[in-house]
Structures are given as C-alpha cells and as structure tokens.
C-alpha cells in the first residue's frame, strides 16, 4: 500500500505551485504531481512555460520570462518541503477517502498515491484546429510554441491563427524573426485586451485577415501554406506560409475527473464556497475552474485559497 499523504496537488502551474508553497509552509508535506514534459501547454509549469516576457505579474517591474517565473515558484515550494512526481494523473478515485491517484497506464488495485486532501490544479491546454494536415505537419512548420520555434522563421512569411491575447502576444513576438506575420481570425474584431490590440495594430509587420477560417494546413513534408475560407463571402483561398502558429484558445484539463467532479458545460470544474468542489476534501484552483480571468496572478491567488481551505478542512477532520 502506498503512504497516505495529507495533501496531493495535481498540476504545477502558478495555482498548483502556490498551493504547494502554502501547504508546505503549513507543514503538510505536499506531493505535487507536476505533469510530464511535452511541447504543449500541458506540461510541468503549465502554460507559462510557452511564454516569453510576463509583464503583468506584480513585483517584477521589468517583467520576467515565463519559464523562469515558474522555476522560481517551484524552487520556493521545494524550499519549504514540497516534493515532486514528474508524471500525470491518469486515473483518480474520489469515491472514498483517502482519495486514490494513479500515475501510470496500468491501473493496478494499489494506487500510486493516496491523499487525505486533494488539490486539483490541472489547468487548461491549447486547442488545436482539427483540420487536415495539422497533426502530420506539427513540428514541420506547424507549431504551438512561438517562443520555441519562432527562430526557425527568420525573414519568412508566417501565420498566427487566433484573436485572443495569446494569439496577439505570439504574433508580436514572431515579428522579431519573420518578414510578415498574418493574423488569421474568424471574426472582424479581436478578443485581445486593448493594450495588446494597440500594439498589434501599430506593428507594421502584422497583417490582418479577418472573417477567415482555416480548412487545411497545406504542405508535403513541411508547411507551405493554408487553405482558408472567408466566412462572409464564402470565397476560398490558398495562402503561402512557411510557418503556422496556432493560438485559438484553451480547454480545461478535467477529463480525468469525469463523473466524479461537477463541471460546467465547457468542462470547467465547478466550485462552491471558495475552492470547494462537490466532493468533500477535494479543492480546485487555477484555469481548470476559471474561464474568465485566466491570469498567472489569479491562478496563484486561487491556489492560495485552495491551500488554506484544504488546511482548515484537514484540521477540522483531525489531521492538521
């Protein structure tokens, strides 16, 4: 039988690591199931691992790189005794306490971890286009990580698909390398914040292609362009690009809790009273429960709430 931990935290973005800092400082010896490396936002450190300058995290006057910020969060949690498992939760059983968590493909009778209190901070991952050519050309000119792959498109014509803050952020970042960046958005106006929009409109390298949806990523062994349709006129077009970056939004990583935790229509975990969920002893924080704010600072704040709620609940249950 595995040891029973007071607190297990699933996920290691700003929410999970803040919960780890607080519960570690409360001497609850949290175990953080931090995720597995990948080139998507579903990885240890979360979405910030794929960003460059974070300019709105309070305290960092001149900004800080996303991966560095997450490294600092992690070091701070480790300093107070949090430990880390570099795996993903593949199955959970929340029907009785202690809660049971599996982190491998073989779901043996014995779980890999057992927890008196569980903090869920599994975040959200990037949506893909789901069009022909996309998965075949991923890594061959099609990318989900501008900061990783922008370098390869010096003096080339590339596209960013999307219209929110992350799409604009990527487009602006990519103008450091590319000759032109065409922003392809299915509507006539951007969802991005005013300051990001102003920056994008002021950037001479960024070209906008409104009311346009992608039908196919075109290319033989590497990306050569996009086949698109104008949603107003119905006109189809082939556009030549050597690189395509996808930033069309996010979907919560709540699938592993299906049928156990209440979620809304879009899959975000529902909270009741602070960070509590429908299962007593399970707390939730960060983007897996937030489709409105989705900021590093709000995720961190909700992680702190979940830690305090978990600590008080454990104490009341006689484990504190």
């Amino acid at each position, binding site marked *: 039988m595995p040891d029973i931990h007071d607190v297990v935290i699933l996920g290691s973005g700003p929410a999970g690591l803040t919960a780890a800092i607080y519960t570690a400082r409360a001497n609850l010896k949290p175990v953080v199931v931090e995720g*597995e*490396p*990948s*080139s*998507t936002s579903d*990885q*240890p*450190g979360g979405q910030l*691992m*794929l960003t*460059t300058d974070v300019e709105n995290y309070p305290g960092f006057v001149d900004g800080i790189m*996303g*991966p560095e910020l997450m490294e600092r969060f992690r070091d701070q949690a480790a300093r107070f005794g949090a430990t880390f498992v*570099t*795996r*993903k939760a593949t199955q959970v059983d929340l029907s009785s306490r202690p809660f049971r968590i599996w982190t*491998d493909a073989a779901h043996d009778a014995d779980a890999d971890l057992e927890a008196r209190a569980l903090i869920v901070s599994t975040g959200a991952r990037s949506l893909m286009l789901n069009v022909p050519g996309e998965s075949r050309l*991923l*890594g*061959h*000119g099609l*990318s989900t*990580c501008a*900061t*990783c*792959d922008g*370098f*390869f498109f010096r003096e080339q014509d590339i596209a960013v698909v999307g219209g929110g803050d992350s799409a604009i952020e990527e487009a602006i970042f990519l103008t450091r390398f590319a000759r032109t960046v065409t922003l392809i958005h299915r509507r006539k106006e951007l969802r991005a914040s005013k300051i990001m929009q102003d920056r994008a409109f002021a950037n001479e390298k960024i070209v906008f292609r409104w009311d346009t949806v992608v039908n196919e990523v075109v290319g033989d062994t*590497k990306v050569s362009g996009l086949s698109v349709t104008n949603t107003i006129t119905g006109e189809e077009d082939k556009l030549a690009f050597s*690189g395509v970056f996808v930033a069309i939004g996010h979907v919560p990583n709540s699938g592993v809790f299906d049928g156990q935790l209440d979620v809304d229509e879009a899959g975000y975990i529902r909270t009741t009273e602070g960070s509590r969920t429908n299962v007593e002893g399970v707390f939730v924080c960060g983007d897996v429960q937030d489709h409105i704010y989705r900021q590093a600072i709000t995720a961190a704040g909700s992680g702190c709430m979940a830690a305090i709620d978990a600590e008080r609940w454990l104490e009341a249950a006689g484990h504190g």
Partner: protein
Amino acid sequence: MSEGIATLSDATFDEHVKSADTPVLVDFWAEWCGPCKMIAPILEEISGEQQGKIEIAKLNIDENLDITRRYEVMSIPTMILFKDGEPQLRVVGARGKAQLLQELQEYL
C-alpha cells in the same frame, strides 16, 4: 551537465556521430526553449541508465546553424537518433521519460 553527454558543434558533429560505437541521440535545443529545459534531466537519466547502448549528445541550434539546417529542424526540442552517421529516428517535441524510452526501444 553530466560527463556522459557530449556537446556537439557544426565542426565536430559528423566525426562524432560516425565514429560512435553506439547509436547517438542528438538533442537539438536552445537556451530560450522552455520544453528543452524540461527534458534535459530526463536525457541525463537516460544517458546514465543506458550507458553502452545509446549515447546522448546535445547540439545548440543557435550556435550551429549548418547542422540544424541540414536536418531541417524546425521545432525544438527535436531529437534525432543517428546510427553509423545516418539518421534513423526523429522525435519532435518534449516527452516524458517512459514515452521517450518506448520510442527508442528498438535501439536499446
């Protein structure tokens, strides 16, 4: 970085992968790539555990454009396995340890 992981360059690449006794997994990486940093410790572990079966080496793409272009690396991390100097297998994107080992299985 552990002693077992060689740092390759445009100048040393060909000689190194051709003369190696075991297949060489070359990690194309850069300082500014978050996922590259995440897999670094995994590659160190594999390097230690699979000694004599497979060698791990790193190539910084910022400093070594010739080799990076020759193998058409367009996304990092990319790992390419070379045997007798010839590319055998290409892994694009970061992976967990178990999954990476599974993809390399045939060469271990």
